[in-house]
C-alpha cells in the first residue's frame, strides 16, 4: 500500500497542510489580526480587512495545495462571485476544504461557526473580528443575525446539509437555510463541490489518502431568484418548497454530474408547485 512515493508524499502533504491551517490560523490570530484590530477602530472596516486577509491567505493556501501536488484544486467561473452582495452561498459539503475554497474565491463572505471557538481568546479575535456568526444562539436570534448580515450586503455561506456529507449516502437538507433565504428575501448562489476520490471525509483519518490524487472541483452554478419561491400562502410552505428544490438540485447534479440549470429548473418547479423537477 505504501510502496508508491507519490502516495506517501500526498499523505505527508495532507498532514502538513492540515498543520499549516492550524498554525497559520493561530499565527494570524496572534499577529496580523490584533494589529488590524489595533489600528482599525471602526467595526465594519475591521471586519472587511480581516476578511480580506483571510481571503488572500486561503487563496494562497489553495494554490499551494495544487502546486505541491497534494491534491488538484480547480475552481471554475469564480469571477462571477466577486460582485455578489447580500447573497446566500449554498453548497454541498463533501470535504474539509469546501469552506476554504469558497472563502478563497470570494472576498466579502460571512459564515456560521461553532460557538465553542469563542472560548479560545485568539480564535475569538479572528471569528469575532471577521464578524462571523456563532451557531449557539437560539434559533430565532441566529435567523435574525443572518438576515441582518445579508441586508448589510455581506454574502453568507451556508451548507444546507449541516454537516459534511458521508460518501454514498443520500443528501438530506436541514431547513434553516431556507428560512433565512425566505424571510430575508435573499437570492441564492448555488455552488457545487466535488471531491473525488474522497479524502478527509467523516470517520477517515488524514493519513489514509486514496490511491490516486484527489481532485477538488468547485463549480459556480446559477443564481436563484428567491422571488420564485415567495408566492406561497405561508412562509413555511415557501421554505419547504425551497428545501425540496435544492435537495433535488444537488441529488441530480450528483448523479448526472451537471450543473447550471438552476434558474430554468426553478421556473419549471414553481409553475408546477406540486410536481417534481423532471
Amino acid at each position: 500500500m505504501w510502496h508508491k512515493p507519490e502516495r506517501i508524499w500526498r499523505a505527508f502533504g495532507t498532514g502538513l497542510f492540515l498543520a499549516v491551517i492550524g498554525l497559520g490560523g493561530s499565527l494570524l490570530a496572534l499577529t496580523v489580526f490584533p494589529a488590524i484590530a489595533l489600528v482599525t477602530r471602526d467595526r465594519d472596516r475591521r471586519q472587511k480587512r480581516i476578511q480580506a486577509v483571510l481571503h488572500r491567505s486561503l487563496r494562497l493556501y489553495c494554490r499551494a495545495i495544487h502546486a505541491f501536488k497534494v491534491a488538484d484544486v480547480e475552481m471554475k467561473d469564480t469571477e462571477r462571485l466577486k460582485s455578489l452582495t447580500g447573497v446566500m452561498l449554498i453548497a454541498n459539503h463533501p470535504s474539509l476544504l469546501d469552506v476554504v475554497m469558497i472563502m478563497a474565491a470570494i472576498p466579502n463572505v460571512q459564515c456560521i461557526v461553532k460557538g465553542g471557538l469563542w472560548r479560545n481568546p485568539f480564535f475569538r479575535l479572528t471569528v469575532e473580528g471577521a464578524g462571523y456568526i456563532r451557531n449557539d444562539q437560539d434559533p430565532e436570534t441566529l435567523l435574525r443575525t443572518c438576515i441582518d448580515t445579508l441586508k448589510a450586503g455581506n454574502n453568507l455561506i451556508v451548507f444546507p446539509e449541516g454537516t459534511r456529507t458521508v460518501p454514498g449516502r443520500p443528501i438530506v437538507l436541514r431547513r434553516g437555510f431556507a428560512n433565512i433565504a425566505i424571510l430575508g428575501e435573499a437570492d441564492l448562489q448555488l455552488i457545487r463541490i466535488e471531491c473525488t476520490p474522497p479524502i478527509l471525509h467523516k470517520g477517515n483519518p488524514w493519513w489514509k489518502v486514496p490511491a490516486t490524487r484527489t481532485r477538488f472541483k468547485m463549480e459556480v452554478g446559477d443564481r436563484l431568484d428567491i422571488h420564485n419561491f415567495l408566492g406561497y400562502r405561508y412562509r413555511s410552505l415557501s421554505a419547504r418548497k425551497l428545501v425540496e428544490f435544492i435537495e433535488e438540485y444537488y441529488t441530480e447534479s450528483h448523479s448526472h454530474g451537471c450543473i447550471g440549470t438552476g434558474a430554468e429548473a426553478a421556473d419549471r418547479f414553481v409553475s408546477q408547485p406540486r410536481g417534481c423537477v423532471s
Partner: protein
Amino acid sequence: MTREEIFTTLSGYLVEMFEVAPDSITLESRLFEELDLDSIDAVDLVVRLQDLTGKKIKPEQFKTVRTVADVVDRVHDLLAE
C-alpha cells in the same frame, strides 16, 4: 371549543401550513421530531393560534410544548381563561 374541536382545527393548520400528512397526526405526535416542524414554524403556529383564540400568547407559554396534545391543552386553557 371542546378538546376534539381544537384537535381538528389544529390538525387542519398542520396540514395546511406545514404539509404534514393528515393520517400521521395523533395527540401523541411529537411536533419537532415526528411532524418535522422547526422552531420558526412554531412561531408561525403560535401566531395562528392567537388569531384562533383571540388572545395574546406569550412565547414562554409555548416553550415547553412537545406534542400535539400539549398544544391542545394550552389552547384549551387559554380559551377557558
